[in-house]
């Protein structure tokens, strides 16, 4: 790993630590456990790849961590939907059908694209990322359709993750078109985009939610 990507990787690491600290300080760890696990997994993956590169900066480790990240991203979308709709049986019934349909389609499309390998990552990775984007989108559309009150934190998670995933798919598409010769540049842009995402989340994690007090009932948990 050359100097600039290494520097950005360390900045991402710092951003992730700030994000986790903000989540702990503001009591947001339990608001989406899948997201907490995802942040922890990314921090571990980043640390291993940058601190022990001879062992973990490899294709096989990249495949492993990417698989874990993909699973956790889908888990984030499903948990956010569950947390938003669990109290509303009517809305949750609809949300369940929509999410199950999306999961079934994405599972079938991913199964059709196996076996996955690092050399053909543009063939299977976009399908996994698109599935995550649409799980988040379905949740957002249902939230707005039913006017369910969701927290600023959940909103920030979705508003940050979806655009980053779009950048990631676009970069994979570019990699497929231009070939491995541009891998370094593509990786650098991806790292910068991810750094932006982590900083956005860290800012959201540390921010106080003011609407809570404005709309809360007397004697609530304020």
């Amino acid at each position, binding site marked *: 790993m050359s100097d600039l990507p290494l520097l950005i990787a360390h900045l991402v690491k710092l951003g992730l630590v700030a994000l986790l600290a903000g989540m702990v300080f503001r009591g947001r760890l339990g608001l989406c456990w899948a997201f907490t696990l995802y942040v922890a997994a990314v921090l571990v993956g980043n640390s291993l790849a940058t601190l022990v590169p001879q062992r973990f900066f490899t294709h096989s480790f990249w495949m492993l961590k990417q698989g874990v990240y993909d699973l956790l991203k889908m888990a984030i979308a499903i948990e956010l939907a569950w947390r938003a709709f669990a109290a*509303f049986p009517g809305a949750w019934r609809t949300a369940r059908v929509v999410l199950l349909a999306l999961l079934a389609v994405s599972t079938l499309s991913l199964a059709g694209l196996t076996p996955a390998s690092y050399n053909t990552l543009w063939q299977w990775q976009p399908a996994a*990322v698109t599935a995550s*984007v649409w799980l988040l989108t379905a949740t957002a559309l249902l939230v707005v359709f039913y006017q369910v009150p969701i927290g600023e934190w959940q909103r920030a998670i979705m508003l940050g993750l979806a655009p980053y995933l779009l950048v990631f798919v676009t970069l994979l598409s570019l990699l497929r078109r231009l070939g491995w010769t541009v891998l370094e540049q593509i990786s650098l842009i991806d790292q910068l985009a991810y750094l932006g995402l982590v900083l956005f989340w860290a800012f959201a994690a540390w921010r106080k939610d003011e609407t809570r007090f404005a709309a809360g009932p007397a004697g609530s948990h304020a």
Partner: protein
Amino acid sequence: MLELVLSSVGCAALCYTLGRYNRTLALQRWQFVLNAPEERALETLRRRVELDSALARQALDAAERARDAKRPSDALTVLRVALAVLEEAGADRLTRLRAMAVYSRMVRAIRPLPAPSPAPFRGAPLKAMAAFAGLVHGFLVGTQERFRLWLVLMGLGVRIVLHGGRRAVDGALREPANARPWAAFVEGLSDFEALDASHLAAFEALAASLAAVDRGGRQELWERIAGDSR
């Protein structure tokens, strides 16, 4: 390429919807569900409805007394006050009807309401509309659809009454001696009270449905919302 297009569409839809999402507004819409137990919310609404009706009736009576005492300018001023009371009450009812429409989509089942009937109404448009809604009611199967039909009927009813009230006041301003606009206003007020009775019944049915299926979910929901920024 397909994934890129799908991701772009999904991301744009998400950013557009969540970007426009107004949490404060959503919370305000939910306040009547989240903040008070059903009985208290129903009692508050009942008092509000009675107060609005009493205020409008009082203003109308005062206007009629002034008209009988040959003080047309005073009569018209007080009649406009009665209309203002109705307009404010109407805006409140329409806001609550919208909130009830949103919430009715989320419960598993709603306590059934009787079929709409023209009997409680005096105005011809409302009678016709209620008769038509009663007909449509027979074709709908689900209680939620029937409930929403009631909400549509009440929303249209409030608008019709307010429109009729404004026309009546305009008519009284043009021809102070003519008794017809006054009669139309009295008729409108009576219809508004009938609509308010339906409004209360619908609210009660929704609150009962919520109590039946909720199992403490509201409290959990509130804790999730309120516990967001500890």
